[in-house]
């Protein structure tokens, strides 16, 4: 019972740590880091579900009866590369915000916006 759901609980903990970083930190780069922790926890969730006891990697070979589920692997493989590409867009936005506002702290940006209007 305890060990049977351990992976999913760790996933929830990691997901919540990422979520906490996103909502509790004002720094935009730190928020992006939080998002990528969140993202990785989802990867771990999918890959944990794909595992079958006694299975091996899904590469067909002689004399192997049980394979792990290949479908989640495919989904996550592409998601990792898409994840880094979108993270790069986020970082690029942070860089532009730094140039425009001189800061990437949420509160300072808000203060500047309030001054403007």
């Amino acid at each position, binding site marked *: 019972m305890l*060990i*049977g759901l*351990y*992976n*999913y609980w*760790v996933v*929830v*903990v990691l*997901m*919540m*740590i990422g*979520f*906490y*970083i996103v909502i*509790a*930190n*004002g*720094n*935009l*780069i*730190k928020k992006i*880091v939080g998002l990528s*922790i969140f993202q*990785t926890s989802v*990867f*771990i969730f999918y890959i*944990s*579900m*794909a*595992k*079958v006891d*006694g*299975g091996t*990697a*899904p*590469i*067909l070979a002689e004399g192997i009866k049980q*394979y792990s*589920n*290949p*479908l*989640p692997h*495919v989904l*996550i*493989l*592409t*998601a*990792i*590369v898409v994840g*880094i*590409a979108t993270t*790069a867009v986020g*970082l*690029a936005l942070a*860089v*532009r915000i*730094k140039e425009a506002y001189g800061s*990437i*702290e949420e*509160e300072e940006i808000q203060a500047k916006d309030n001054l403007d209007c």
Partner: protein
Amino acid sequence: MTSVFLLAFLVVIAVAIVRMRDLLAVSMLLGIYGLLSASFFVTMDAVDVAFTEASVGAGISTLLMLAAITLTGRSEHPTRHKPVLALFVVLITGCLLIYGTLDMPYFGSADAPIHLHVAPHYINNSMQEIGIPNIVTSVLASYRGFDTFGEVVVIFTAGMGVLALLSVVRRAENITKIDSINDSMHAEYLILRIVVKALIPFILLYALYVQFHGDFGPGGGFQAGVIFAAAIILYAMLFGMSTARRVINQSVIQFFAAIGVLLYGSVGVVALINGKSFLDYSALSADPVAGQHLGILLVELGVGLTVASVMVIIFFNFEGRRDVLQSQENNHKGDN
């Protein structure tokens, strides 16, 4: 058993990231986090995923993080308000999610719903239908080829997004100036340069191996693209951006990023013209299995081209931005 400890380490590192204020240390910890999750994926039999995560999470993502931090500053301001509310929201959400997991089938059980739907078809029939041993590649490129096409388009779009946000118009630099910059870096980086010069051909060769061996072992276009880009980025870091820009022409690499997507799409269109569904590779040749082989080869090539070019574009634009900002700062100092 190993996976239990790896997951515990992941939690420890995530907590350390929460507490750390220095963004440089945070990005290093994120690299460790990526490597550990890659090791976890190996213990879960997901070798292809582990390969991708090791090259992306521990390699390229740390680099991009560092490139961004050099532009935005490395220390985080402490927040003034107390994060009690955030903690409360997170705890409630976490409890609800844990409550949700109680209905999940136990880890590793072979009769979970996820293993009963389409996965048995892939495992039992992919050898007859596609004819390559690596099921992940056959699902990625053939059964769910349309899905992967969408992902490649997303990567391409992300590359274009970075280009739109960060690209700068630069005048052609004269060659003697580039050479003098290059020489001035020489003494500082001598040992690194010699070792890296010896290693880069092997890295590129390995990327090609990963690209074309993806049918038989872990690997494929996504991993190969990232490794290929890593070699180019390594070169750019050690020989200076202006030298690297002379070697890797930016408009050519943008052209390649588009060509990759186009290649993927046109394989689908050729199948369509031959009277089968979009991306049904059995239409490419008289023998359906040979057609599948050809289709997967071309599609993976397209994926590899796009991924490698987009990663290079992203890195070069981050670094190019820094050059421009530095020269602007110098001009400001000169004015004052």
